[in-house]
């Protein structure tokens, strides 16, 4: 089993895991904005940059993203060296110029000593940092691939196909859930949900009458996983109650 040294601590690792996995498991804080355990690591935000060296190669030093770098026996990792802090400060400084109105970015930037951006702030943009989480979760987890990105470089943006309400969207709102800077807006009423300029009808729980899933998402999941038609008739809470009641009967028997 490989071992690595993180900030002086010798840590045991599993073969094939990343440095960020090891840090998370051991409570070592490494900031990351484009990382989410539900999707494949991506390496876009560059905040989880760390410094690595190896006693086997004296003089060799490199800066890599913890979310993608696979552990290697004997690797020496610095998660908070002065060069690492400078890199993160620059990334946050640049992100603050991109999204001067984002509280999430501002708070993180202050942690790295950036109170105000040193660069020219954008005055016409939203808080999207192009971390790609929304697009990736829609593709990798949901499997709907309803949204994507358009253009490249500095004018790149998250977009629906042809900038029209996305026909493949099932209204699950996973994209809004993973967005680190809260850019994707969801409007929720008891009967409807509005997201990506589309209005979805909500499916109501037979038992308690609470709306718990969009009808599009229900149909999608039943079809995708080959589930019985009544699978989503009850909401999660009511399902749990039913299961609990069954078990109670079993116990008294």
């Amino acid at each position, binding site marked *: 089993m490989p071992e690595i040294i993180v900030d002086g601590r010798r840590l045991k690792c599993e073969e094939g895991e990343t440095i960020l996995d090891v840090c998370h498991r051991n409570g070592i804080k490494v900031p990351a904005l484009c990382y989410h355990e539900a999707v494949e690591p*991506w*390496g*876009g*935000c*560059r905040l989880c*940059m760390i410094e690595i060296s190896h006693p086997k190669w004296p003089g060799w030093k490199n*800066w*890599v*993203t913890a979310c*993608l*770098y*696979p552990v290697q026996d004997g690797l020496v990792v610095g998660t908070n060296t002065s*060069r690492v802090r*400078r*890199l993160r400060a*620059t*990334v946050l400084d*640049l*992100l603050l*110029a*991109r999204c001067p109105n984002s509280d999430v970015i501002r708070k993180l930037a202050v942690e790295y000593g950036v109170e105000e951006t*040193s*660069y*020219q702030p954008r005055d016409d943009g939203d808080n999207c*940092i*192009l971390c*790609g989480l929304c697009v990736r979760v829609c593709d990798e987890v949901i499997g709907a691939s309803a949204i*994507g*990105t358009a*253009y*490249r*470089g*500095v*004018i*790149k943006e998250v977009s629906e196909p042809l900038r029209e309400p996305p026909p493949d969207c099932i209204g699950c709102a996973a994209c809004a859930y993973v967005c680190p800077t809260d850019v994707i807006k969801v409007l929720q009423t008891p009967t409807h949900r509005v997201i990506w300029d589309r209005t979805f009808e909500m499916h109501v729980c037979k038992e308690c009458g609470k709306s718990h899933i969009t009808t599009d998402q229900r149909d999608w999941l039943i079809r995708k996983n080959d589930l019985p038609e009544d699978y989503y008739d009850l909401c999660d809470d009511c399902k749990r109650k039913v299961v609990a009641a069954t078990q109670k009967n079993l116990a008294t028997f």
Partner: protein
Amino acid sequence: MRLKSIKDLEKRRKDAIKAKEKVRNTVLVCCGTGCLAGGSAAVAEEFRKKLSERGIDMDVELRVKTTGCHGFCERGPIVTFVPSGILYQKVKPKHVDEIIEKTIIGGDVIRKLVYRDPTDKKKYVEQYSEIPFYKHQTRIALRNIGQLDPASLDDYLARDGFKGLAKALSMKPGEIVDEVERSGLRGRGGGGFPTARKWRSAIEAVGGKKYIICNGDEGDPGAFMDRSIMEGDPFDVLEGMMIGAYAIGSDEGYIYVRQEYPLAVKHLRKAIDACREAGLLGENILGSGLNFDITIARGGGAFVCGESSALMMSVAGKVGEPRAKYIHSTERGLYDLPTVLNNVETWVDIPIIIEKGGDWLAQYGNEKSKGTKAFALVGRVNNTGLVEVPMGITLRELIFNIGGGIQKGRRFKGVQTGGPSGGCIPAELLDLPVDFDHLTEQGSMMGSGGMIVMDERTCMVDIARYFLNFLLEESCGKCVPCREGLKQLKILYDRIVEGFGTMEDLERIEWLSGDVQIGSLCALGKSAPNPVLSTIRFFRDEYEEHIHDKRCRTGVCKALTKLVIEDTCIGCGKCIPVCPTDAIAGELKKLHVLDREKCIVCGSCVEICPVDCIKPEPAKVAEEVPS
């Protein structure tokens, strides 16, 4: 006819050589992209027409061949004659009659079509091999280009084509890699990674299926080495890939060609079809048991897709964005399977290494960089074009001996090597050996081999800004340092060229460049600050002039410049009609006057003035400019 064995191949080669020897004279008309644009297709057509009108037997007496690029595009269309070795430049259809009459029948040389030395106009050079541009070159990767018809398998066979493959098939895969290792070959696409080491790790990689990829996405502005090879010698590329496939055990290959190269695609397609027909691609190649086929994948026009991981994404039909390469492509590449990706130029070096042995290639070059490298020599040199030289040759030899020096006898200022993300090398370092390591030491790089020569009229601040802007537009936008960092660098540069720059801005540029270099995900971002940092390092005084004195000594930065006509004006009147805003007035043989209110500092008059009397002056007084 399908070739079933190496014996069949050798028989076909013999026939091809015999057919070639039968022809007494051959006219080679260059039909590379450069010469085609100059009208070479019409020249070839005219030759064929006129010869058949005269009843000359084109299979025996004289054959007209359209070839790939000779590399001397600036002088095109180029026509050469075998066996006499005469080269005619700038040939037009109207010259054809005269050429047939005087040169082909009469055996005389037509002087007006012969190359003249730009430094000594009286010196005529008749022979192809004696022209300084060609004389100082060592052509290995470019050995066949311009010498054969790219669509003809027989032409390729007659020039020793597929000898490397035939030999490779009799060797063990490991022996092939050993031979490549002995040659010292390093990747020609920019990184300079040892080719044999790459192959070896693909051989060791776990996984059944393996891929071979040829990177023909040559995106550097002004570079056209790979295009010329794919257009002019496509069989060579295929042969290299076949040998690679045999060595690593792959059965499927891709050639990724950029969108802008339709002729390369056409020629490669023809070559692939010819190989399939001859049994050189497909199943059981030459009876050896090797199965291998090649597909062409066309790019969509994004510069970043020349980066290997982005290229593989693009081949797989995904968005062309790079990924971190902590796990090498040789382990997990295309479709997550082991993949060997090499550049076009690397692939064409392979057949000759196998044919002649690794030691043969290693005799060229210097200690750490072996063999030769092709460069696209462009910019303000007299002879622009495609050149191939042994590694380790000095910049001076390249620019002055082959390139023929700077246009109009101006002073050399710097050379940008390695394309837009390379660095600028100043005049003091003209004796620097051109190889992977020496260029990197000076903050530049070999890159794919672009070489842009600049003279004293080039503003180094503006040139850095230009390359930065190119890379900003081509950044894929995946990672923050490249996407946002390059944008902010561009904003800082804009301030400097408009006269609002401060020394803090310059410091900020250096600081941010350092972080973009370390923090970016792929080589595009990591190398993007090279032109910035190298120009600051070698031309700092020009930056300071822009900031402190609000002056651009070359007159390129418009906001800082006004033009003045000095009294050396001879009153020739040439500048008056070229001025787009009618800002110049004056009578013939009298001093002309320039109206500063109307002048937009476009530089047209500076360019045309025969006595260089229009000079740039600072437009603003340093104190007047608000900080």
